[in-house]
């Protein structure tokens, strides 16, 4: 158990990170991600109000659909990444644990009259991830959830327990994120874990899975200093939003889109077996400083080390040779496309 954003979280269960990681790629793993912040936004103009704070196109989101988006700061840095779902008469939001107080305060401070933000502090969140997740949901009577496409969301019951389930996750695998009343979370977790294809997984496997999937960890790979353009998250900026420029931080983002950013988030494959961890300096083969690793470790599915980090755009092309300074010694590596392990979302 380790402290994480004010919560006591398991790094691993007795099976260990490698086994938990493989469980998620092969069958299904259950993660307790109740530390994440949940809330609702409702009222006339809620979508437009949110669009003042994110480059994402919220108004295009149809009922029953969810999307990944960024909260941007006045200077174009990233305040957080989050999920927003259209629930018909309101929007459902999921934000990072470490950012939830400041995110909700930030959103609340920018709302016009008639739009209200409500925190769901009495809700737990479980993530069921892996190729067997759909079959598990079917066996537990959640046919409506099992029928969802990627990024669909529905209110349903799992093992008779009322939940809000979305077809999404943070592992690159098919799966579900299941919001449930906190006092029903234990019963839901037990029902899911009782299935033959499900085993629990901790923070360690969550990190190695999302790294192989090329997904950003807020605080490591994106933060207040990085822009959506530098982070390679331009796809989260709606087309309409790119003609209106009405979101917070649009000046920097617009100029970086037009002139090109100075640095970019890239995938990196070290050549040997040694992992390069966060803050490892990245240098060119002539020794010129290029940037640093923001997330790195060993990818159990690839059986090889993987990393992501920021480099000068001159060295951001796939297959560019670079060196990672691990314990003072240059380790040969190459810029590589992400995801490192292909996504297997339900399309």
């Amino acid at each position, binding site marked *: 158990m380790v402290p994480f954003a004010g919560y006591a979280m398991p*790094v*691993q269960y007795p099976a*260990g*990170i*490698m086994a938990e*990681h493989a469980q998620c790629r092969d069958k299904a793993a259950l993660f307790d991600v109740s530390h994440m912040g949940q809330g609702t936004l409702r009222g006339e103009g809620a979508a437009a109000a949110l669009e003042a704070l994110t480059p994402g196109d919220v108004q295009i989101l149809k009922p029953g659909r969810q999307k990944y988006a960024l909260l941007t700061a006045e200077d174009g840095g990233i305040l957080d990444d989050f999920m927003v779902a259209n629930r018909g008469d309101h929007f459902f939001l999921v934000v990072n644990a470490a950012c939830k107080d400041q995110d909700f305060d930030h959103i609340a401070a920018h709302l016009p009259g008639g739009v209200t933000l409500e925190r769901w502090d009495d809700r737990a969140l479980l993530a069921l991830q892996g190729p067997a997740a759909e079959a598990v949901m079917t066996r537990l009577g959640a046919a409506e959830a099992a029928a969802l496409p990627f990024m669909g969301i529905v209110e349903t019951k799992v093992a008779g327990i009322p939940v809000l389930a979305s077809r999404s996750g943070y592992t690159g695998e098919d799966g579900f994120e299941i919001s449930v009343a906190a006092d029903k979370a234990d019963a839901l977790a037990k029902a899911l874990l009782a299935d033959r294809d499900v085993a629990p997984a901790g923070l*360690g496997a969550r990190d*190695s899975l999302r790294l192989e999937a090329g997904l950003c960890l807020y605080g490591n790979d994106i933060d207040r200093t990085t822009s959506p353009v530098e982070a390679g998250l331009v796809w989260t900026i709606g087309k309409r939003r790119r003609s209106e420029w009405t979101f917070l931080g649009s000046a920097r983002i617009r100029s970086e889109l037009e002139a090109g950013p100075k640095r970019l988030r890239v995938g990196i494959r070290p050549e040997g*077996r*040694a*992992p390069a*961890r966060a803050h490892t300096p990245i240098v060119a083969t002539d020794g010129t400083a290029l940037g640093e690793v923001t997330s790195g*470790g*060993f990818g*159990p599915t690839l059986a090889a*080390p993987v990393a992501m980090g920021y480099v000068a755009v001159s060295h951001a092309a796939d297959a560019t040779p670079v060196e990672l300074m691990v*314990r003072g010694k240059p380790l040969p590596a190459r810029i590589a496309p992400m995801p490192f392990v292909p996504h297997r979302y339900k399309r």
Partner: protein
Amino acid sequence: MSELRFSKDHEWVRFDGDVVTVGISDHAQTALGDVVFVELPEVGREVTAGEACAVVESVKAASDIYAPIAGRIVEVNAALTDNPGLVNAEPTGSGWFFRIEPKDPAEPGTLMDETAYAAFLETL
């Protein structure tokens, strides 16, 4: 002295003839989790007791391995390069790290025996 002796940094030592074999304890490998990479010292390097001379990387993190006694590195376990998981599978057997020719052959005997190490683990 062919039995295992232990350091407070969770390395074990064992005399194999005139040289001392060094590895990490079962407690240490359990705490580290799945080992994915081991960086070994250069043969011939002189080390002092407590000097960081190898690195073990698990899925979780990188950790230093310290020389439990002073001496000269005379051999490293090349099998760990291709199969670092030996550290988890057989920490006091085929998962050994390196061999030291001790500066003082009496030094290994000053380390904790198994009973004392077990008592030490209780205090952690």
